[in-house]
């Protein structure tokens, strides 16, 4: 309940008001915006709707989508995770160092990729749990905790890379069986896509069809009410951070496979994209509100914007400004929603 709202007139809403609300509250508002945007660019760069380009967008969406789903989990319990991208960096360089054919720990071993993926996932999970535990047990605001883990692990990743390469900013020469995740696929559907869709379905079911999902929302909406109703609030919050780390790791797997290298600056610059995508997708920063579909739409929107700007070959400044504006726009819409809701 931030501040004192203006005394509400109450009473019934006018029809135009109702219309506005209808538009605002539909989850597909952003989707509509996306279509609008693509249409707007179509006259300038017809290529934007070419099948191959749409396919490119689709592929670009995947890792971002996975990471954003992870972030959604922490946002749902009204926390934040700034370390998601550092988790990607750290886990992917370690994974790469295991399987690279240039002096990797398991270089050439048939199961090296498996071991690497396991390592990546494990590291993601560990850092996630670490975030959760520090937030809950040490009672440090998650903003700070994850800020620290962000600094620490991005630094550690660079150090690790330097220690594992003679003079290079990344670890390449990864086994093709691993890279297959990037380009290979079944019946034209890339493995990356299959993994992502699988994860998406799991998260969706988890949120809508399991006790844990209900608990997550409850904690986000009202922690004390949840606690009194027998929800293990602390464990739920830690669980969400763990999931955030886990999904960051999955994203790292996909990125690494696509980049064919483990690089410590992986995702360094996409933290804002991840948060932005979630928020644009209707995930509330105050907890409790958010859905997989929404996040997917949010990610699609951002990627479409990006892709459009790339096709135009626009300057960095426009890219920055437009993206910032887009995030602000989404936040404003979210705020208007809250106000209308408060009016009842």
């Amino acid at each position, binding site marked *: 309940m931030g501040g004192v709202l203006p005394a509400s007139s109450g009473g019934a809403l006018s029809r135009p008001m109702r219309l506005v609300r209808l538009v605002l509250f539909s989850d597909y508002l952003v989707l509509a915006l996306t279509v609008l945007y693509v249409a707007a660019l179509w006259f300038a760069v017809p290529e934007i709707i070419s099948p191959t380009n749409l396919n490119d967008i689709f592929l670009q969406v995947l890792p971002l989508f996975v990471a954003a789903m992870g972030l959604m989990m922490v946002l749902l319990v009204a926390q934040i995770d700034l370390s998601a991208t550092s988790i990607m960096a750290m886990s992917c360089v370690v994974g790469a160092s295991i399987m690279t054919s240039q002096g990797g720990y398991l270089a050439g071993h048939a199961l090296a990729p498996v071991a690497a993926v396991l390592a990546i996932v494990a590291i993601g999970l560990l850092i996630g749990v670490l975030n959760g535990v520090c937030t809950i047990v040490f009672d440090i*605001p998650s903003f700070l905790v994850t800020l620290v883990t962000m600094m620490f692990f991005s630094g550690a990743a660079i150090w690790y890379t330097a220690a594992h390469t003679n003079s290079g900013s990344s670890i390449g020469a990864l086994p093709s069986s691993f890279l297959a995740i990037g380009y290979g696929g079944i019946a034209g559907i890339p493995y990356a896509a299959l993994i992502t869709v699988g994860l998406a379905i799991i998260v969706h079911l988890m949120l809508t069809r399991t006790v844990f999902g209900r608990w997550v929302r409850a904690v986000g909406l009202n922690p004390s009410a949840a606690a009194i109703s027998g929800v293990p609030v602390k464990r739920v919050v830690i669980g969400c951070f763990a999931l955030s780390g886990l999904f960051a790791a999955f994203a790292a797997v996909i990125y690494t496979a696509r980049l064919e290298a483990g690089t410590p600056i992986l995702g360094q610059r996409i933290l804002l994209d991840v948060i932005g995508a979630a928020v644009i997708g209707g995930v509330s920063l105050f907890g409790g509100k958010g859905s997989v579909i929404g996040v997917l739409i949010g990610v699609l929107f951002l990627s479409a914007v990006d892709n459009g700007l790339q096709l135009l070959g626009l300057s960095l400044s426009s890219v920055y400004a437009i993206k910032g504006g887009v995030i602000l726009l989404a936040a404003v819409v979210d705020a208007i929603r809250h106000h209308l809701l408060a009016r009842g």
Partner: protein
Amino acid sequence: MNGLNSRALALIALRFAPLMLFVALCIVFGALSDRFLSLANFRNILAQSTHVAVMAIGMTFVLLVRGVDLSVGSVMYLVAVAMGLYLSGLPLALSIPAIVLIGAAFGAVNACFVTGLRIASFIVTLATLFIGRGFALYLSETKMVFQSDTVQTLGRSSFLAIPWAIWIAAAVACAAWVTLTQTPYGRQIYAVGADPDSAAKAGIRVQPIVFSVFCICGACAAIGALISVSQVGAAAATFGYQEEFPVIAAAVLGGTSLFGGRGGVFGSIFGAVLVQTTANGLVMLNADPYLYPLVNSLIIFIAAWVDGRRRLMTERIEQRKIRVEA
């Protein structure tokens, strides 16, 4: 009562925990490098931490009312660009007020969204961080922006053997300290931070106060930019990139709470100096550069942990409140 007092003592002890941390650091570095513990070196440390310190002071105002400003890094770059491209002709007497205005104006934009639409300051400033840098890059065409000689001279000249950067920071610090402790406005900031709703009930104009602190933060970011850019002489496209993190870290290190209502000017300065001391010490030791972020983040973590403990203690010491009925 007695137990309560001993708790209060423990609280005071906790308040000074960061200071102990600092002393410990100095001892360690001093032991490892004979050149570390010299007056000249501490002058360097101060000079190098001023721009973060000044920005942290501004950030403190925002944190005190439970807000946060992520856009300071972009303000820094925007101001540096403006200084180099448009204000280079002006004498400092004119250009400094000008950039302070620019910074304050940027803060006002943030404030409009925060107070007007009640959007979380985190997300607002996240967006303006983007927009601000984008706009600045648009002005600079991402080229390196060189500063006028007047600015560069300011950066290296000193008064009474103390660099101007330190004087400026000191001036800002005093102004901020007086504002926070000696004016009604300052005390009301603390009240708003402690509990916005009660503050409104107690007849305080909450929204204007929240608005103003964002302007102050913007202005401080501008001054920080002036100091930094005068020291390095030119601003590349990456100038001030992700500067918000060390700034917030400095404030929190200094004991400012992210939950509002507690914190102070000197704490924030102290935080900035602490971080810079670590960096300086590591250079003095000729330490592996890769260690810097690791050591820094660990120190921040310790400080944050202390902050958490302190908050718990405060809650315990506080009497049980009458349950507020919404």
